[in-house]
């Protein structure tokens, strides 16, 4: 067992040196209320039971833990896939979206907003909002609107409005910023359903709590044999923290995979932990891609969901304390992993999830004979256009 797992951040929202609430004063009271309300709800058996009912009957949990036999054989590694791609709407994002939407209803707020990169969190939030009767607007960068067009259509069909964000790089970072600007204005009537384990306290903690079901189910499904290694991709870090947190109590080796984009050396990547330095972005202190003067740099990844220059503060803490190892794989390696899984197992993974898978195939020799669990955080339908385009070039 690894020592130092933090059940919750401290009173200032810190995981060690990371986290906190670096937010405008206008939001501070709302953040305090949110922390209190979440804590009350999470300790309320009725709320928890309702959340679990939604997970079971709407999301379709538990998701299977699938042994990928053909791929295991060709890699020489026993490969288990946590099938978050089979969750309703096609990714783990719905676990958090349903949880926060239920909390929104409990707080009596009629409207939710969200940011989205890959569109999966936007779709999950639009879905939860439709199911619970909440008004919903989703901020999305113009570049992402283009590369994840299918998800834009889904959100609109679900009755949400997608608001394009054109400044900056027109990707996830800009969408988060714009959602926060909306929230500063509308906090009285609106809850911001943030899509990853990022943002000011209590978001990183709350999102982890709503995602830890991934790891908890894995422990049940694995039984006493456990596995040797567990791997997940890290964008903001929600599927990975959801998988890792319950596993921190075991001997399982944990590896988070960041986006190396075109290669760490090119500067065009999204590897905030591996190549960044501590700083403040979107209300939290964490590892950050930034220049010498503290200007935030643009991230680059073929997968919109990993195209973010920061990372959840708990990952920064887990990295510093050595409890989780972080590595990165490139766009090309991820694309190869999409092909590999599609052809050998009949599962088309999201480009994000393909990063975790690519790490396994890349390290197959060192992992020979071991049991490796990969969080297949989402399905790849949304990425078909991006994949086709990458083939053409």
């Amino acid at each position, binding site marked *: 067992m690894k020592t130092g797992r933090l059940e919750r951040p401290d009173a200032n929202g810190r995981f060690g040196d990371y986290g906190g609430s670096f937010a*405008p004063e206008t939001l501070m*009271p709302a953040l305090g209320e949110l922390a209190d309300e979440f804590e009350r709800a999470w300790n309320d058996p009725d709320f928890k039971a309702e959340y679990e009912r939604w997970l079971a009957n709407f999301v379709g949990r538990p998701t299977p833990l699938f042994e990928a036999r053909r791929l295991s054989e060709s890699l020489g590694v026993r490969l288990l896939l946590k099938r978050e791609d089979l969750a309703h709407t096609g990714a783990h994002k719905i676990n958090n979206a349903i949880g926060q939407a239920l909390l929104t209803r409990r707080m009596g707020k009629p409207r939710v907003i969200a940011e989205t990169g890959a569109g999966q969190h936007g779709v999950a939030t639009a879905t939860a909002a439709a199911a619970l009767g909440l008004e919903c607007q989703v901020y999305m960068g113009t570049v992402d609107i283009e590369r994840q067009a299918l998800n834009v259509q889904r959100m609109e069909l679900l009755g949400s409005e997608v608001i394009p964000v054109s400044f900056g790089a027109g990707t996830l970072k800009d969408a988060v910023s714009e959602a926060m600007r909306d929230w500063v204005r509308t906090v009285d009537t609106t809850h911001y359903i943030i899509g990853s384990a990022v943002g000011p306290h209590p978001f990183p903690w709350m999102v982890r709590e709503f995602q830890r079901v991934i790891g908890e189910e894995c422990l049940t499904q694995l039984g006493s044999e456990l596995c040797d290694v567990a791997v997940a991709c890290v964008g903001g870090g929600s599927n990975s923290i959801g998988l890792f947190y319950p596993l921190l109590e075991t001997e399982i080796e944990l590896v988070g995979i960041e986006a190396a984009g075109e290669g760490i050396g090119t500067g065009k990547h999204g590897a905030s932990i591996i190549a960044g330095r501590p700083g403040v972005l979107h209300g939290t202190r964490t590892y950050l891609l930034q220049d010498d003067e503290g200007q935030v740099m643009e991230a680059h990844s073929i997968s919109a969901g990993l195209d973010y220059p920061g990372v959840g503060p708990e990952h920064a803490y887990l990295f510093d304390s050595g409890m989780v190892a972080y590595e990165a794989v490139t766009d090309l390696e991820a694309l190869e992993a999409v092909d590999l899984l599609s052809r050998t197992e009949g599962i088309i993974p999201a480009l994000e999830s393909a990063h975790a898978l690519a790490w396994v195939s890349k390290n197959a020799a060192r992992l020979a004979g071991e049991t490796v669990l990969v969080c297949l955080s989402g399905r790849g339908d949304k990425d078909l256009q991006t994949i086709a385009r990458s083939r053409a070039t």
Partner: protein
Amino acid sequence: MSGFAAIRSAFGSATALFPFLTAGLPTPADSVRLFEAMAEAGADGFEVGIPYSDPLMDGPVIMKGSEIALAAGTNRAVALDIVGEVAKRTGKPVLAMTYVNPVMQTGWTQYASDLAERGGAGIIVPDLPLQESSELAAACLAEGLGLVQFVSPTTTDARIGRVADANPAFIYGVTDMGVTGERTSISPHVASLSERVRAQTDVPLVLGVGISTPEQAATVKNLADGVIIGTVLVRKVLEAENAAAAAVALKSAVAEFKAALS
């Protein structure tokens, strides 16, 4: 006189006017003269915006200004030099308005001493709330700089008390929910915010965010010790054909606000 004292001395019988403008607009070379024009029109002190990649508290106009200034080469040193130059040429207290990450990367004490050395009077950091600000507060105290703390319509009375106890150079009262930008009317929250602050402290209260016309300034002048205007000024610079035209426009705008406050 310390920076802190210089800021405090800007508050007299009339409501003080603190114009905000981004450093390096329209270019670093033309920036200081715009502040001089505003000083000639009666500004009592300045907020100089240090351009930043991710200005969370700012609306589209100031974001645009920040983007232009950065593209024109307004890095940290250039921006802080502008702060110093404005202080020297106008003799008014000048506060740097920056986001927290660049300060953290420089180091709290280093940033404070860089600012003080150039003649800056204080610092405003909108994403550094009270409970995260003790290190910067200590660094400012050591340099005699004034740190500003925020209150907003949603701030509780208890928290206003804690803000007052920190003895900031002034309390920045955010008049309206939302980011910087022009509003068609003054927020209905202002009067009660001002009352709640005044009930607890004599620390000067300066209202900002969403005060866009001289008429709006006039309606709040008795509710505060000072007023900050920003977006309306940045917009004038963005719309001006050149720096000379911008200086003329800023001078007349500031004169109108000044008249409305006196």
